């Protein structure tokens, strides 16, 4: 391509001009100290101007690479953040478990808790509006949580785990028509079965209480300890009133201590003797079948 004469004339003039001025500046710089510093200052200014511009261009062209690096760094930071969050939650969980254990020890007594281990779990889902309510907790078989373990809070019984996945477990809530637990009235020996019968989430019924058992309003209902799910003497509710059922048993209306609408963390109770107890119970069942 042939350039128009105007352009190559202009370029030629500029090159000659620049060359002559450069020679002059070199001569000036070599022959005077003051002028040398002034010329160098000017050269540095021009150099820094071009350096700044070229750096700006380089930075602009390198944006794609910088963007990729930032994204990688962002991903790494997110990963680190997640790890730290998990660590913090674990620490908080340990603290909370220690706090809840202390509360329970205060309520129940250390001797009653012997042979039981506790795992703190967070409630992921909690249904309240149906007659077959359930909870999902964030602990599963990976955490040693299996089915048929009791779930409580320091305020009372929550339910029993009926199924476990690797990371989550299904808890059949006490507020489920198919759920029942063995309890006792007061510190005495009046046993019964606590069942929720629908309606209010703060009320349940204690059935099959012996007629001769004394029932007073405000008596506390505790877990009996007759099942392998819960240790004895965990407070569950307070007696409100009672009626005679079929002339054979007392039926006690109980106000539940546990507020199911504000469940956040729960404790999974693991009975270390459960396997042995269950195996013995199985022998009994097999014996009955054989008969």
């Amino acid at each position, binding site marked *: 391509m042939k350039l128009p004469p105007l352009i190559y004339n202009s370029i030629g003039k500029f090159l000659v001009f620049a060359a002559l001025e450069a020679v*002059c500046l070199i001569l000036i710089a070599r022959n*005077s100290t003051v002028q040398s510093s002034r010329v160098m200052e000017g050269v540095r200014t021009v150099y820094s101007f071009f350096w700044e511009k070229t750096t700006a261009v380089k930075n602009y062209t390198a944006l794609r690479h910088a963007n990729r690096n930032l994204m990688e760094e962002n991903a790494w930071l997110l990963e680190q953040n997640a790890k730290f969050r998990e660590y913090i939650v674990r620490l908080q969980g340990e603290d909370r478990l220690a706090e809840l254990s202390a509360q329970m020890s205060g309520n129940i007594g250390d001797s009653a808790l012997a042979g039981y281990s506790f795992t703190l779990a967070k409630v992921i889902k909690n249904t309240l509006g149906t007659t077959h309510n359930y909870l999902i907790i964030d602990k599963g078989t990976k955490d040693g949580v299996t089915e048929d373990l009791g779930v409580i809070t320091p305020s009372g019984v929550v339910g029993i785990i009926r199924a476990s996945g690797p990371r989550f477990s299904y808890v059949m809530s006490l507020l489920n028509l198919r759920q029942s637990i063995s309890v006792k009235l007061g510190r005495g020996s009046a046993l019964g079965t606590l069942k929720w019968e629908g309606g209010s989430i703060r009320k349940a019924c204690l059935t099959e209480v012996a007629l001769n058992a004394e029932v007073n309003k405000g008596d506390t209902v505790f877990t009996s300890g007759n099942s392998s799910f819960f240790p004895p003497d965990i407070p569950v509710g307070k007696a409100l009133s009672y009626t005679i059922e079929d002339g054979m048993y007392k039926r006690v209306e109980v106000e539940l201590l546990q507020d199911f609408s504000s469940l956040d963390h729960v404790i999974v109770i693991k009975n270390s003797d459960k396997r042995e107890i269950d195996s013995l119970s199985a022998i009994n069942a097999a014996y009955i079948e054989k008969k």
Partner: protein
Amino acid sequence: MNTFKYIFGFMVILILQLLCSNFINLWPILYIAVIPLLVILLPPDINTCILMLCAFAIGLLTDALCDGILGLNAACCVLVAACRNMITRPMRRYDIQTEEMDLNYGEFRPGKLAMLLVASYLVFFVPYVIIDGPMGKGIAYLAFRIILNVIVNSLVAYLLVRLWIRRFF
């Protein structure tokens, strides 16, 4: 004959410049420079590159023969040469005989000539004062020195052109 007169005029201006530089010392901040006039008065149809080379040679010769900073006059003269076409463009007139834009300094009216000289000396003295000026002086000092030099030198150059040099160019 014209060429002889031109060279003679050239030599006169150069000698005048050497005399001014070496013997006339009116005031430390004032510098009488005649060589920009020489660059301006070089043939109007000369190529800019050659003009710049001539200006460089004139400036360097002056620097070498005077007690100054080597390269300073040369740098400023080259700048004047580079800007000469731009400065003189409004003053050129169309010659019907040659069908080209002509520049005849001898026929300039006083106002045009003064404008040409002031513009040329401004181009010459701005870099000259900036490079030559002592360190630590403010912009006001530099501006004062530039204005003073431009006015005095334009006046001197005007008188030279009107009274004497126009006979040679």
